[in-house]
């Protein structure tokens, strides 16, 4: 297992996101100055988790005790209660609150307990209680979903980039890798060889969770894929943005979320032509706490 290059580490990803977004001027200063809105932070889903019917573009924190606290100084921009909004739109986020922070950042705390949103203090300070954890709207368990929206770049930012690192020493698990062509899948390891041709390469990764419930398998923070030592894919779960009515992930090499995730639940990272011979394919993953894991397979292409 080798260390990921510096370019995949968080500060670099942050600067990358700042650079590409053209916004988030205060991003560098914001980094790690925010605090987790629910303590202790137990992740039920994270940025890039593919949950039922949606891609999580924030973090879902499990917990029934304590208060949901403002992660930064800010000003309440919007709040709504669970149910149908006056316009007739149901609130799938249940009771939620939007806090305007500096630098064009809007923080959203959703699925909180109905009737607990505190709007007496319109400008909450970091650490001020703003609601109670809840299970309002479309959410699998009790807690809060925290999302960070960069208004200037019109994109969602991985909250990991702004929050203190989690005390986590469990690296992500690489469960399998597969080559797919048409409807045929070759799970590497199980298949001794594959016919030559063009394949979609997918990898099944999960980051362990310590939460009492889950909204989806935890996504890694970064994935790097190489064939015979040559990097063919490097993805960092840093930002997400809707473009032309479709959600895209990654600041560099944006990829449609629908294309990234296969129906089997794997991340489909690249498409490659393989000719006869022996190839070595390697995947390296890293979570937000810097825990890394790698795995490699030798494949005979016939």
């Amino acid at each position, binding site marked *: 297992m080798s260390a990921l290059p510096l370019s995949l580490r968080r500060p670099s990803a942050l600067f990358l996101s700042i650079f590409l977004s053209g916004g988030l001027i205060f991003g560098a200063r914001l980094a790690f100055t925010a605090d987790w809105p629910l303590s202790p932070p137990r992740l039920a889903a994270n940025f890039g988790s593919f949950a039922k019917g949606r891609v999580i573009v924030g973090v879902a924190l499990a917990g029934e005790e304590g208060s949901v606290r403002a992660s930064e100084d800010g000003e309440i921009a919007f709040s709504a209660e669970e149910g149908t909004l006056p316009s*007739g739109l149901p609130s799938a986020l249940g009771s939620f609150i939007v806090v305007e922070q500096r630098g064009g950042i809007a923080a959203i705390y959703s699925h909180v307990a109905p009737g607990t949103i505190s709007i007496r203090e319109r400008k909450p300070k970091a650490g001020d209680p703003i609601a109670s954890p809840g299970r309002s709207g*479309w959410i699998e368990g009790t807690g809060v979903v925290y999302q960070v929206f960069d208004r200037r770049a019109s994109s969602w930012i991985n909250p990991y980039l702004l929050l203190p690192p989690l005390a986590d020493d469990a690296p992500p698990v690489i469960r399998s890798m597969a080559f797919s062509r048409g409807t045929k899948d070759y799970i590497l390891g199980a298949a001794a060889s594959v016919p030559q041709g063009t394949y979609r390469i997918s990898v099944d990764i999960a980051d362990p969770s310590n939460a009492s419930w889950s909204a989806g398998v935890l996504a890694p923070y970064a994935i790097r894929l190489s064939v015979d030592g040559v990097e063919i894919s490097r993805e960092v779960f840093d930002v997400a943005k*809707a473009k032309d009515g479709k959600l895209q992930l990654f600041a560099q090499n944006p990829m449609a979320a629908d294309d990234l995730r296969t129906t089997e639940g794997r991340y489909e990272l690249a498409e490659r032509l393989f000719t006869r011979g022996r190839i070595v394919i390697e995947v390296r993953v890293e979570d937000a706490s810097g825990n890394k894991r790698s795995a490699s397979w030798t494949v005979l292409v016939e």
Partner: protein
Amino acid sequence: MEEIGKRRLAAALVVVALLAYFLVCAFPLHKELVLMPVWTKSISVASVAQTANTSARQKGVSEEKASGEKVIPFRLGNRYGYFSPDGNIIFSAVADYGVALAPDAYATYDRLSEGFTIKSPYGAELARVAATGYPFFAAGRRFVIGPDQMTVSELSEPGAIKWSYQLASVATAFNASPSLVVFGLIDGTIVGLDSAGKAVLDFAPGGSRIAGVYGVAVSPDGLLVAAVTGADKQRLVILEKRSAAYRVAYHRYLSSDYRRPVYITFTSDGSRLAYESSSGIAVYDRDTKRETIISVPATAYLGQTIRRGQLMVVLSGSGDAKRLICTALPDRRVLDVPVKASLAFVEAKNDSLFLGTDDSLVRMDFEER
């Protein structure tokens, strides 16, 4: 004698002038508008579900076709159902979590809804939908909002997904016409999608320190889109479709500074826009581009016009203390009555007013005297 003659002449002239004034400048007094009670019905589940359900709903489609009557949906908290203008309670039930209601269909859904059944008011199954999220109906169209509050889909008649669209951020407001569906987002953008799910409007009004959309409305013809946007300062923005694009036709800063969803709606004939303002219900006249205020004592949460758009009905208040206020537009109040109910709704049709309060429905008809 000559002096007396002059006085008489002057008096006669005054009388003639007064007569002429009354004849020429006469303005008829407003007729008194009164509300006459027609019927009162209980909509408690116990009294209705056992009787009306069995008598009408189980007969299903045949009953619906036979009756041919237009039924009216109601929702009071988790209780929902349908009734006919003549006082027939089609059914009354309690939703476990949520319900989407329209005059022609409804669908109940669970908190973790991954599918639902659309039914007619008489219980006939219209469509089974396999979609994750919550349904909502408007302008004869059926939609689903995803668990992220950003993915919206429109359903076809048989319940298939016609199109899906990923909004740039969380939707806070919505409205639809037969040709246009509009969403307001937390990022301050107003997004309009046509009937094929193609974006035909993507506009961020700006001009406020904090961006946001607190309410949107589409005129029935789809040509006007209005929104209450931004905070510090809050703005009313009206966009009008000219050629193929929507352009700002009117805007003004408001004295309100809401940080929650606000009520805004076009009247059914599209001639006026009513929206919640800090001093009451503001009514914008599309033709004159003038605004008048209907002052109401607290949060107004429903505004409808009847009698050819000349009378606005508003239900206002909070808690158990609400008021039903009717105003002859632009600003002549003709009715203001207290409504003691924790849950209430009002529906205005033609010359009738249907008022729902907690567990009963009342029909009252306007009469001129």
